[in-house]
């Protein structure tokens, strides 16, 4: 029992990380129909900015948090402005390949800026790990879960209750119709890029204390986040959360009850199976018919 609980906690912590990254993929997809493979690099930029601002320059945590998120959002806007919008024939494949290129560029820039070594930062709160029925949970895990929940709630509010959010959804459903009705669709796309970059940066900032941050951390995290988004049904915020948590828990139960050398294999096999049974993902059913 104690072991099972520990596997569950470990899975939930990892899963919440995947969930926030999946959220970034999902959000951008629902607004632009674009999968941004540089999402993992936004996570990396968020984490490394925090390393520099919080540990390096000793700024207070909330300020370091805000500056990092704002900085990475600007990177997202620049990506959209310079690389995505300037494409003459915006075929989806072309755009996806551009994002892959952008991820390689960002990784290279980060390697030059922060070096090849890994960095670490201390936890947000210095509370010792919680002991629940013999299993331990890091306070930072609660930070991750809490902020993830807050981000999802805020996004839900944004999409359902604000005019801008509704305009963004309208733009996603039919860009042309939305722009005929007076929605500034280009600005919406830019906003979606800024927001998804910001969510990615938040993911990076949250996980920085539990893991080690390096210029090459984004690729694997981006891949896991992408899987989580697919698992939950890309385009759905709740799906991203469910997919992320599920992937995390499956991985850690796989380690616990089968073998740690098959960790990724188990998770990805289940992903294949779920997508075989439900091709649109767990929460994706409604989305498919929307277009």
């Amino acid at each position, binding site marked *: 029992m104690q072991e099972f609980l520990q596997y569950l906690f470990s899975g939930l912590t990892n899963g919440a990380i995947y969930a926030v990254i999946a959220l970034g993929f999902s959000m951008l997809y629902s607004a632009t129909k674009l999968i941004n493979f540089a999402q993992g690099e936004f996570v990396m930029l968020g984490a490394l900015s925090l390393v520099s601002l919080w540990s390096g320059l000793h700024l207070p945590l909330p300020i370091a948090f805000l500056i990092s998120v704002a900085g990475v959002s600007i990177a997202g806007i620049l990506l959209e402005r310079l690389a995505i919008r300037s494409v003459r024939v915006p075929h989806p494949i072309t755009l996806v390949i551009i994002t892959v290129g952008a991820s390689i560029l960002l990784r290279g820039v980060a390697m030059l800026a922060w070096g*090849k070594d890994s960095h*670490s930062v*201390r936890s947000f709160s210095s509370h010792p*790990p919680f002991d629940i029925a013999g299993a*331990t949970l890091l306070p930072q895990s609660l930070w991750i879960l809490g902020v993830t929940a807050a981000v999802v709630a805020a996004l839900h509010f944004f999409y359902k209750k604000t005019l801008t959010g509704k305009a963004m959804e309208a733009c996603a459903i039919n860009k042309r119709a939305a722009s005929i009705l007076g929605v500034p669709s280009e600005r919406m796309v830019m906003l979606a890029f800024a927001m998804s970059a910001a969510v990615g940066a938040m993911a990076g900032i949250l996980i920085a204390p539990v*893991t*080690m941050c390096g210029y090459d*951390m984004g690729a*694997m995290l981006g891949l896991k986040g992408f899987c989580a988004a697919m698992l939950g049904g890309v385009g759905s915020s709740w799906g991203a959360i469910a997919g992320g948590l599920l992937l995390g828990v499956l991985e850690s139960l796989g380690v616990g009850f089968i073998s740690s050398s098959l960790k990724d294999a188990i998770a990805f096999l289940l992903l294949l199976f779920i997508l075989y049974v439900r091709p649109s993902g767990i929460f994706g059913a409604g989305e498919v018919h929307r277009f």
Partner: protein
Amino acid sequence: MRSSARVFLGVLAALTLTAGGPFASAARAAEPYKIGGIFSVTGPNSFLGDPEKKTMEMVVEEINAQGGIDGHPLEAVIYDSEGDPTKAVLHANKLLSSDNVIAVMGPSITPTSLAIVPIFEQNKTPLVSCAAGIKITDPVKPFVFKTAQNDILAVAAIYKHMQKHGIKKIGIITVASAYGESGKEQLVGQASKYGLEIVAKESFDAKDTDMTAQLTKIRKEQPEAIVCWGTNPGPAVVAKNVQQLGITVPIYQSHGVASPKFIELAGDAAENMLLPTGKILVADLLPDDDPQKAVLTKYIKDFTDKYKMPVSGFGGYAYDALHLIATALKGSNGDRQKIRDALEKVNGFVGVTGTFNFTPEDHNGLGEDAFVMVRIKNGKWELVKD
């Protein structure tokens, strides 16, 4: 890159020749001995190749300043393999066919070393590798030597310490990479020799963010100690997770994290961890009667004075390789077979990495004294005496 390297080497050679001072006339009279170097100077393994190249250049200058060998100055011809076996083969062929070197040191990593070993066997030219893989010199190839310690010695150091403390049951957690696999092989293979039983075997990916699941599984088997085998940053995450789970059994790390970077990454989670390391990391802590103390102190001082960067054990492999070659060159008149024979007879050569005793059966030549056990105490290394 190649042409700029040539220009650089040309300038370097010119400088070393002019720096010859009183021996310049003798040096001019004798043909220089050309020594090749192949290192991973750039790319992901540059942390190995860069200090190795710098060390080779430094030692060449030093030997030439003392008048070279039997009046012949040394000349270094260095190429960058970028850690790519194909490039290593190209450079090895070039060194032998057009540069006409009489001995080669490097490459920095095991895959590049194994790729070029057959070329040196065929051309009957001595190669002193700076890589760790046991396969480079086991089985023994007549012309191939190496200066880096085998993993087997690190495992022996850890297991000896366990034996002394009556530990019988251990859990191991290794990284899923060539380094981790080789470590696992040695850990499993040597365990019974020291009366140890491995009760849990887990692995992690180099980029994993959390290892609590693996450690929970190991804890369930109640081992008396845990060995973690990996290179940064994974073992630092393991250290943090061990602290989180409140695991209190002794934790042994491998020499793969024997750098200040590990302490920086793991913070106070690294406290009390034990690991084997080459003596260079703890040179200032060694007792004065340690045979390596003098050579270590000299190398560290020379390197940090010249390059203004911290010294590492990797540069030490090149330091030993070149000094070994230099020793063997004496009286050889540049004959490759004679250099090889002299290398094989090297006995009691005290280097940065350890004391080398080459024999026809052992072309690594290091003993267990090449590793010392250290403990991390208050964020600093401490020699383990008990």
